[in-house]
């Protein structure tokens, strides 16, 4: 998988400190699986975190009980930058959501566009978007941050094209209107930490119903 669009490096600093909400963590984890470049950024952010945690060689003052490790108990799950690259993100999300994308409860959100809200928290929303080929999405901005990860197909936004595994990083300074490429449907997952700001009246009216 050839990844060309990455989130700002500051996201990996926030990820490395455990400072993000679950939806943002999940999106970045998925991108890290397929992106060696961002795994390298995370590794550097972890190096820095390790300095904050262990940087001093002062003798630790406090001691506490050590749990007894079980001989033979081994886990296979590696940390992000220790993993080998994977090529299919669908499995990652099937595992998280616990069902196949086709069996989700989609709501119509305009011509050629369906939305499924995966979480309920206001400050940490995760949305799945499914758009037919050539769909022009409503123009919108944000009250906060939005990371969008492409799971299937591709879309254009401004001068860039976003393909499977890419992340589009938008915030309150971005006004954008994604357009799905003509060849295939496009499925994306988005993490947002505040309500979207739509330019169109119709979308603004439909917003509470869709919960976006």
């Amino acid at each position, binding site marked *: 998988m050839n990844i060309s669009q990455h989130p*700002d*490096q*500051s*996201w990996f*600093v*926030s990820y*490395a*400190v*455990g*400072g*993000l*909400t*679950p939806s*943002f*963590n999940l999106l970045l984890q998925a991108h890290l699986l397929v992106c060696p470049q961002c795994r390298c950024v995370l*590794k*550097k*952010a*972890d*190096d*820095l*975190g*390790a*300095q*904050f*945690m*262990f*940087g*001093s*060689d*002062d003798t*630790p*003052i*406090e*001691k*506490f*009980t*050590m*749990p007894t*490790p*079980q*001989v*033979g*108990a*081994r*886990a*296979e*799950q*590696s*940390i*992000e*930058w*220790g993993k080998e690259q994977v090529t299919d993100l669908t499995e990652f999300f099937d595992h998280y959501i616990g069902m196949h994308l086709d069996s989700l409860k989609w709501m119509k959100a305009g011509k050629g566009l369906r939305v499924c809200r995966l979480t309920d928290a206001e400050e940490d929303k995760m949305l799945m978007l499914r758009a037919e080929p050539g769909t022009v999405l409503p123009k919108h901005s944000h009250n*906060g*941050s939005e990371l969008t990860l492409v799971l299937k197909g591709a879309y254009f936004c401004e001068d860039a094209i976003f393909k499977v595994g890419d992340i589009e990083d938008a*915030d*309150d*300074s971005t006004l954008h209107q994604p357009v799905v490429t003509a060849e295939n449907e496009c499925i994306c997952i988005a993490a947002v*930490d*505040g309500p979207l700001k739509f330019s169109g009246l119709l979308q603004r009216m439909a917003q509470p119903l869709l919960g976006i």
Partner: protein
Amino acid sequence: MDNSESDVRPAGADRETRLLLDISKTQSQQAYAELFELMAPKIKSFLMGRGSSSDQSENITQDAMLSVWRKSALFDPKKSSARTWVYAIVRNRMIDLQRTATRINKGVEKYKHEGDIDFVTTGGVTDASTRAQLQKLLQQLPEDQAQALVMSYVEGKSHKEIATEIGLPLGTVKSRIRTGFQHLQELVTQQ
């Protein structure tokens, strides 16, 4: 038990890496006990600096250190130091806890500051590990970048929380974290 390597007693990070390799290769409980003694108090202290209670910090530390044992076969000294590897395990334990909706109490009030980095450099945070080399490095950064990094690493805040607290647009906060982060890496490699 083959524990001859630890007799060499390399200092600090090297010693931790040797111990972790020993655990990885021989499942040495003695090496694990030594590693625990070296790292666990620092992890707990770091987590308490984030505002977690003593009990909560101790539980997370113990869970993370058990993961270190279970995952030790995956440790590769060519990819990272023991410290970075353990740090990532602690971080992932924190992320797992968030996923189960028990976000760590950040204790924001406890470490309220007035827009400078004095609380790190003068010991407002009780964790000694944030002081030594990092203190010098952070002082070489422009203050706004150091502040953004400290709010991230020490307080564990998101972009949005930092933006709200210091009253700046998200884009500015992201840019300060990014440039501070890059700047600090340059300083670390120059050391």
